[in-house]
């Protein structure tokens, strides 16, 4: 029955194609080459076969990855169903969280907050689902479209709508938290904005329209905060990271590191000293894995928070240590990067080594 469901989605896409109406809004301009030059290369290696699943357990497209304060690792992925797995710090499958809940349809990212709650970001249901560490649903934001209306009007692949509703998303992409527990959402494919909620889930503010100016977005795809509460938005279609202050005022744009599919600020969430913080930005290989783009995409940049590039590592590819379309990164420890990758259905544990050259 589950296969019937995904097959049906395929049918809708076929219908859309037959009509010559591939929804442009879900598609982006071709991946661009990063313009930064003379960037030192940071030596790195991948831990071989780090993630270990028992027989009968598979991950699909690895869309989201995050660690908690104890080193547990969460992977939010698209298998036959969208599922959320927990792994031990040694990469061993521990358990599944949230299977079959109303908010899981099409994974996009996962984040862990300061209390080790797990936030699943699902672009299929337009919802954020907050789980306790034990896997209990604590809060949701956004609402899945009423299925009754859909029965007579299958939406298919949908399109940009810019609805900008306070408590509804348009294929939101990611979530981040500041030291006060405020919630920041990058929203998304069908809206073009950043939304702030307080820790009780109440709407505070939203900024952004579709476009290429300051505080305009073309698919805000990933979001992170630093210890001061600044917000880093991976403005994927515009090939830049926009930096906003805690009230969502524009501060800066970093424009030389390609199309940021995934952004990450080291140090982890919560009211503790994070140490010196770094920003990681993935100029990911496009998700259809085109051969041409493999020549100039796939690398990850390590930057100072002010945008100064420290170095880069990796390239597009499917060998260990190469990156097969990074969709999310965890960088709680700035020298240990976990990647969730769409192609090759995998995640990797990457160790960064000293001596950029």
């Amino acid at each position, binding site marked *: 029955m589950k296969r*019937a469901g995904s097959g049906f989605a395929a049918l809708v896409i076929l219908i859309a194609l037959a009509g010559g109406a591939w929804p442009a809004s879900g598609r982006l301009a071709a991946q661009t080459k990063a313009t930064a030059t003379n960037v030192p290369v940071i030596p790195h290696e991948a831990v071989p076969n780090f993630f270990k699943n028992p027989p009968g357990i598979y991950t699909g497209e690895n869309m989201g990855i995050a660690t908690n304060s104890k080193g547990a690792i969460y992977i939010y992925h698209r298998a036959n169903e969208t599922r959320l797995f927990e792994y031990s710090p040694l990469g061993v499958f521990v358990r599944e969280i949230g299977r079959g809940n*109303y908010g899981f349809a099409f994974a996009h990212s996962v984040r862990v907050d300061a209390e080790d709650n797990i936030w699943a970001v699902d672009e299929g249901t337009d919802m954020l689902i907050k789980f306790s560490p034990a*896997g209990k649903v604590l809060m949701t934001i956004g609402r899945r479209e009423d299925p*009754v209306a859909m029965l007579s009007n299958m939406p298919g692949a949908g399109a940009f709508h810019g609805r900008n509703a306070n408590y509804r998303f348009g294929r939101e992409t990611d979530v981040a938290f500041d030291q006060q527990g405020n919630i920041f959402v990058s929203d998304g494919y069908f809206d073009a904005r950043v939304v702030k909620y307080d820790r009780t889930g109440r709407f505070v503010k939203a900024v952004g329209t579709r476009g290429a100016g300051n505080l305009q977005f073309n698919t805000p795809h990933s979001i992170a905060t630093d210890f001061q509460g600044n917000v880093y938005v991976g403005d994927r279609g515009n090939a830049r990271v926009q930096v906003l202050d805690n009230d969502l005022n524009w501060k800066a744009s970093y424009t030389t590191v390609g199309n940021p599919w995934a952004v990450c600020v080291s140090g982890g969430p919560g009211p503790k000293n994070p140490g010196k913080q770094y920003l990681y930005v993935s100029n990911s290989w496009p998700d259809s894995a085109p051969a041409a783009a493999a020549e100039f995409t796939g690398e990850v940049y390590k930057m100072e928070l002010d945008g100064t590039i420290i170095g880069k590592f990796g390239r597009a590819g499917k060998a260990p240590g190469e990156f097969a379309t990074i969709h999310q990164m965890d960088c709680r420890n700035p020298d240990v990067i976990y990647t969730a990758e769409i192609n090759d259905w995998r995640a990797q544990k990457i160790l960064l080594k000293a001596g950029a050259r």
Partner: protein
Amino acid sequence: MRRLAGGLVVAAALAAGGALAAQTAIPEIPFEANADLLKTPPDVFLGEVGGVGANSKGQIFVYTRTGHPYATLGDNRTFARNGSRLFEFDRTGRFVRELGQDVYGFNAAIGLRVDAQDNVWTIDAAASQIVKFDPQGRVALVLGRKPEAIAVRTAPPAAGGGGRGGGGTPGAGTPGSSFSRPADVAWDAAGNIYVADGLGTNNRVAKFDKDGRFIRHWGSTGSGRGEFNGVKAIAVDAQGKVYVADAGNKRVQVFDPDGAFLAEFGNIGTPRAMCLTRGVTPYLYIAHAGDDDGMEDAAIYKVRLDGTPVGRFGTAGKMPKQFGLANSIDCRSEDELLVGEMTNWRVQRITLKR
């Protein structure tokens, strides 16, 4: 999306208009809430709670949306299946069992009621069906028929909604059980069945005898007496008077058992759920949400059967003692309610203080 826009307009009007002043005159009822009542096994999750109800033993039944229906593919009938589940809990909130596994019409939960004989009735908005489970969990009666096939981006929604019906005049419905997104069910002392029908193209109340034989229906689309704009909830008092929550018209209309208009009252916001107490002096609890997300403007009103307000409690939000689209109320005990919410995926046990 269209509904959302409408909801925002309503919310804005409420915030700006005199309705707010009228509300503040109603006293606040002090109350406590247990927002962590129901304990599910690790692999069972409540989604949007379409309906909650308790039986005479205090057992709690929850009809909840657990996913979207899947559509079959490749046959000459594309029909929907899955999407909702029915769970039973004991009075302390401990999970007991699931009922109705893999039945034909559990697609989009919209309501649940427990009758005087402890039968459990589920109302489904996508299957446009009402299913009666006896206390042993067997299917005892099915009203309405699930559409044999759903349209895939071709036809507009069929009038009538249910089964091979669909020929009815919009706003009136076809005599019988061709429901269009039915939303609630109630019974009189003789066991006659009253269906709130509903949120689709019908705007009517349909009456059946206790065996499910169609007796009559009344109502059409509009804002006059006996007309409805979204029939969301229904209740019947000991005298057989029928109370109908006319959500879009922001009022409750009262009818005699044959459908003759008796009275109407407002000042209860947009009524989305309703429950009639069974004590010597009965009251109506009416859940209001002024916006479609349940985050701006919400409360539950307690009113006398003539519409005189007694008090109100609760606000909109996601915290305990707040409501996110309360869609169902159980008031078997006048001072201890069960409230099921759509956007907060939970049931709260509310204890009112007098």
